[in-house]
């Protein structure tokens, strides 16, 4: 009798834990994470692009990053295709307003590329390797931490 009670208790505890686990969750891919990581990585890639062209590695000043999910319009979260608009000022003071696409996978990584094909497929010559490479400021890969505690930013 004790054994059957313990067994039932164990089953109930397991089910309860399962329910808690399944219900208490923020999606991995949130607007907040996408916007934050895209902006930070874009800045770094921009500076890296300058560095590899033999210029001073200066980060652009990002004034605004707004991303929206093209796959989950209601909750604005989850993997899939995201569109991002990034406004920044270059080292020469020029203001830019670019539209980008992010293909976010379920593992918290993405491929990002500008919708301007000229910039997307633009090549630069790396002064270190002397190879012609795709300009990092036109397309790049990125990843974000799904445990960073960042909340979904639901501003429309």
């Amino acid at each position, binding site marked *: 009798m004790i054994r059957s009670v313990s067994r039932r208790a164990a089953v109930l505890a397991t089910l309860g834990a399962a329910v808690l*686990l399944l219900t208490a969750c923020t999606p991995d891919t949130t607007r907040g994470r996408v916007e934050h990581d895209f902006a930070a990585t874009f800045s770094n890639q921009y500076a890296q692009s300058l560095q590899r062209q033999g210029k001073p590695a200066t980060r652009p000043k990002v004034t605004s990053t707004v991303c929206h999910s093209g796959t989950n319009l209601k909750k604005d979260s989850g993997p899939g295709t995201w569109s991002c608009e990034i406004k920044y000022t270059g080292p020469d003071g020029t203001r830019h307003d670019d539209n980008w696409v992010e293909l976010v996978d379920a593992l918290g990584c993405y491929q990002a590329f500008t919708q301007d094909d000229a910039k997307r497929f633009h090549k630069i010559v*790396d002064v270190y390797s002397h190879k012609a490479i795709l300009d990092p400021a036109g397309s790049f890969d990125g990843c974000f931490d799904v445990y960073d505690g960042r909340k979904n930013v639901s501003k429309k």
Partner: protein
Amino acid sequence: MSPFAAVYRVETRKLLAQTRVRALLLFLLVVPWIYIGLILHQDRLPLETLYGRYLKDTGYATPLAILVYASQWVLPLIAALLAGDVFSSEDQLGTLKTILTRSVGRTAVFWGKLAAVFSFTVLAIVIVAVSATLAGVITVGNDPLVDVGGHLRSASSAAGLVAISWATVVLPTLAFGAIAMMVSILTRSSVLGVIVPVVIGLVMQLYTFLNAWDTVRHLLLGWTMSAWRGVMDSPSYYTPLARGLVVSAVYLVVATTVAFVVFRRRDVAGG
């Protein structure tokens, strides 16, 4: 020599004597070279694969791009091929009674076999990682690598990151191996011992790409297989890896425990 060491020695000799094991190791040695050779001879790059866009820029992208494929299905397959019939083959050959009537008890036989299979699994991972790195560096170049945070990492730093990334998949791969061993002991079938873990890996992989509950995804071995990406970021983040390793350890311990208990208690009535 202790019974465990005796079994370990015999099992490693047996594994090396098997054509399919040697063929597998040779395959892992050669495939990275074929892969990068094909990439270099075509114009298009696999942009949908992480680090695919950098395959012609730096040799250190090769082992990382291969790691993406490996973590999806190759590593579970390797684990299943090595561990999936380490016990069931003894049932099929009838040799379990042969080894259990020598001076080694069941405990030594179990742990010796497990250690041998795990050693070969780690060896397989090392072979493919080193081969991929050499293939990339020799054919493409020993050039700096862009991390997923957008920073340029020196060649030496890149080599270290590649090594760490590959090291993170060892534990989840061994967990797949433990599952394969458990199935092999429970079913006494080499076919199931190989197929079941591969199917489990594929199902986990499929779930990973479904837009379903993320919490469940975090409890799958496939998630841990991809946690190396945090190491490649700047700043690096390790929470997915730390949690994933705990998840892997749980799979490993549970599967190994079930396998051990069943093996210890079973009657050897065949052979």
